[in-house]
């Protein structure tokens, strides 16, 4: 069974356990002897099943069961044992008694000695659920104590309410109160310590003195490469956030991130590609004629396409006309110098209305990328502050049809480019076609291509090796990710469908429009062939049939293997583990039901510090119920394994990988791009709720003190 299913099963079993214990107690209070006995039995069986479900889940990794094994199960078992010892014999005796209904028996099961232990076991079982939901990973002594106090308090109240006199009530109440206060203190005091440690954190982090702060585990800085599994630092031991702080280095040079900029002139042979993008609010008209209020670059959504040939220097002047919250440009998936990365408060200040910022970087990587604002990025990107970045290989003659298709959910509808209706193109049969799919949303999209065999030739801008021919396959594209599909135009129509629901692109056979095949790249905002021309649906049955049952392509088994510079067996200089979950935490200083990393939310998540040249392994574990598209700025990562299995197909170099519930991804990268980088969930609403942190190179500082990272 998959981890995802095991997590669901464990959840259901724990709900059943809590419900059975509580109902048994309620039944006893209502003098239903036989019902009490039956529910008691169900509760015992469910509790044992809970042990089994936790053990089964433990096979997927300690991260998935840590709080259950250390707190929830012991608590449940102590309570269940007490209930069995106290209530068990009484319930059995009452149930065995023949004759009149138990209600007539003076005591029967409605005695505090039965009702209170049964309900108490119910509270203990429910506490485990509450812990999983509210606290998540990892369980710590503070929250455990607090939980224990709540259960004890509930038992005391129940006992008192059952009408019995409670021996030592005052002492017990006092003890519970002390436990509660201690729990609260332990839970919240480290947070303040973390703030205090922020200043010194910089120094200790820089020196690589990771374990110095006395965390119980080898620490997230991972100076011990062998400690793969539990290298999670204590909640605050070296908890410094980079906003404002920095990673200084012992004896090394110190550079501000603002010095890490692109060159002023292109490399020999390259041209300068100049663009000016002006961010402003505007009303845009979608292809159907529908008008939508948007935040735009140059009044368009998507913004103007930025194109270059490999080796060119791209120079983009960003101006802000009237986006009040400010705007930046982040080059998603493009390994630009850190000072060009466009992260407000970290690599630059957000560009205010009236301001401007010039980005310069060499177009070193060919492929499909995109750009978007990183200031209030969740809202900003969804409102339209994004566009495409496509770099074509040097010397490659552009032939055929090349469509760049950013897919976005805009004002509630899915648009491809600026088309809220299918984009229709005539293409001459025999023409090579390349479709560049970009998911600019917060959630994954599923694409299908009907009417022709095709190949998935590139993922996140990087070509795959030996991509095989695909037919009836569902392509799941992570938020922020890109797929390049290639095929030769057949004699019949070809349809690209999004989420098995809406047709995004319809290519119909026919003479291509003038110059159609000549241009290298263009966005999907075609001024030609909108619907009218040749909607020839010959063989339409193959392209209109439902695609929902097409199996999802497993990227880790697609293509052919090729040598990689490092593998699972490499020796890693740094080892970081990120356990993703939900729980209460301070997100941006405000209490929230946050999306957490190792139990913390930005900016409290310790910065990952690396040294230039390090080989770094990231293990990302999702023990929550949401999908998290993980995105590291400035580096492409090589997938080492997913759920313990290495890819058997083409090597996968990704900048955004979808970590689904229950999944564990191991990825690696070489630290060759010095700077200060965001490492975050690209479901930007999750990032807003805390799921982001910084990765800092030793010796790089920032002069910016923005509270914001995205």
């Amino acid at each position, binding site marked *: 069974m998959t981890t995802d299913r095991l997590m*669901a099963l464990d*959840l*259901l079993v724990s*709900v059943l356990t809590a419900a059975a214990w*509580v109902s048994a107690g309620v039944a006893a209070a209502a003098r239903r002897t036989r019902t009490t006995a039956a529910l008691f039995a169900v509760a015992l069986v469910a509790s044992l099943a809970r042990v089994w479900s936790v053990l089964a889940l433990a096979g997927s990794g300690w991260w998935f069961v840590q709080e259950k094994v250390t707190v929830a199960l012991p608590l449940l078992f102590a309570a269940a044992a007490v209930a069995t010892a106290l209530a068990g014999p009484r319930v059995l005796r009452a149930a065995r008694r023949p004759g009149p209904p138990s209600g007539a028996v003076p005591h029967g099961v409605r005695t505090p000695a039965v009702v209170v232990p049964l309900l108490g076991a119910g509270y203990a079982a*429910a506490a485990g*659920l*509450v812990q999983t*939901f*509210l606290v998540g990973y990892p369980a710590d002594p503070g929250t455990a104590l607090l939980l224990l106090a*709540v259960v004890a*308090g*509930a038992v*005391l*109240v*129940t006992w*008192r*309410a*059952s*009408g019995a006199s409670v021996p030592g009530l005052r002492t017990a109440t006092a003890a519970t109160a002390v436990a509660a206060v201690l729990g609260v203190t332990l839970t919240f005091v480290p947070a303040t310590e973390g703030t205090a440690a922020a200043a010194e954190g910089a120094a200790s982090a820089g020196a690589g003195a990771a374990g110095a702060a006395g965390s119980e585990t080898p620490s997230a800085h991972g100076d011990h490469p062998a400690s793969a599994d539990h290298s999670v630092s204590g909640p605050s031991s070296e908890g410094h956030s980079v906003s404002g702080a920095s990673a200084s280095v012992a004896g090394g040079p110190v550079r501000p991130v603002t010095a890490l900029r692109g060159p002023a002139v292109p490399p020999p042979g390259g041209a300068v590609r100049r663009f000016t993008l002006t961010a402003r609010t505007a009303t845009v008209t979608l292809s159907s004629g529908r008008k939508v209020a948007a935040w735009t670059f140059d009044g368009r959504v998507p913004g103007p396409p930025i194109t270059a040939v490999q080796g060119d220097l791209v120079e983009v002047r960003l101006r802000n006309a009237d986006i009040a919250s400010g705007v930046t440009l982040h080059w998603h998936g493009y390994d630009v110098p850190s000072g060009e990365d466009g992260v407000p408060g970290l690599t630059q200040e957000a560009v205010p209305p009236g301001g401007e910022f010039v980005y310069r970087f060499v177009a070193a990587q060919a492929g499909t990328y995109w750009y978007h604002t990183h200031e209030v990025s*969740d*809202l900003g990107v*969804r*409102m339209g502050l994004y566009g495409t970045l496509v770099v074509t290989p040097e010397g490659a003659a552009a032939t055929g049809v090349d469509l760049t298709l950013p897919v976005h*959910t805009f*004002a*509630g509808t899915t648009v491809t480019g600026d088309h809220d209706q299918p984009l229709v193109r005539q293409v001459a049969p025999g023409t090579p076609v390349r479709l560049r799919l970009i998911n600019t949303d*917060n*959630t*994954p*999209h*599923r694409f299908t291509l009907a009417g022709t065999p095709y190949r998935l030739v590139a993922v996140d801008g990087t070509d795959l090796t030996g991509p095989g021919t695909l037919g009836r396959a569902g392509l*799941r594209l992570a938020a922020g990710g890109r797929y390049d599909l290639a095929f030769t135009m057949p004699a019949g129509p070809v349809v690209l469908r999004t*989420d098995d629901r809406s047709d995004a692109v319809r290519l119909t056979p026919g003479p291509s429009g003038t110059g159609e095949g000549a241009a290298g790249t263009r966005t999907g905002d075609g001024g030609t062939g909108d619907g009218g021309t040749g909607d020839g649906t010959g063989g339409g049955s193959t392209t209109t049939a439902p695609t929902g049952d097409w199996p*999802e392509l497993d990227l880790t088994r697609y293509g052919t293997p090729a040598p990689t510079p490092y593998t699972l067996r490499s020796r890693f200089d740094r080892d970081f583990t990120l356990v993703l979950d939900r729980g*209460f935490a301070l997100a941006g200083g405000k*209490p*929230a*039901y946050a*999306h957490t990393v190792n139990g913390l939310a930005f900016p409290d998540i310790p910065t990952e510090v690396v040294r230039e040249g390090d080989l770094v392994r990231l293990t990302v574990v999702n023990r929550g*119920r*949401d*999908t998290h598209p993980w995105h590291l700025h400035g580096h492409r990562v090589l997938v080492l394994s997913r759920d313990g299995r290495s890819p058997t197909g083409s090597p996968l170099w990704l900048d955004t990988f979808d970590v689904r519930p229950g999944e564990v991804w191991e990825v690696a990268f070489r630290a060759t791009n010095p700077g200060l980088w965001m490492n975050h969930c690209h479901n930007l*609403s*999750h990032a*807003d*709720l805390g799921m982001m942190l910084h990765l800092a190179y030793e010796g790089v500082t920032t002069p910016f003190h923005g509270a914001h990272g995205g």
Partner: protein
Amino acid sequence: MRKVYAALAGLLLAAAVVQMYLAAVGAFDKPQDDSSFALHTMNGMMVIPVLSLVATAAAAAARAPGRQIGLTVLPLGLVIVQSLIVAIGGLFDDSTGNTTPLSLAILGLHAVNGMAVIGACELVFRRARRLAWPKPEPRSQDAAEGSAVPAS
């Protein structure tokens, strides 16, 4: 103490009403995502459970009858069910995380159970008031609502 208990029960009812309001705020927020419901989530997972627990403790301290104490913790139990409805409904989303007819059928219960939370809070408050002021004083507010109290 019974007056304190009644006041807490009133707060609990107010928090439950605010919760409905915040649900509507989230539903009408555009563009909509997790953060649209941030306040709804905070109020529902933090404020209402804590108020429910504190009110229950107050009921115990006020020597309310056992039934009443049990009733006071009911909103907390129902709120746990609210979270479970969301979690279990989510299990039936499709592979891209979009809802399916089945997951929606489950998630819709969130509203029904939400009404149960309001109902429970209202019942708690009404009975808490009766405990605190056994004979309604001739104040207009009590007179207006007094007639609505059924002898349950």
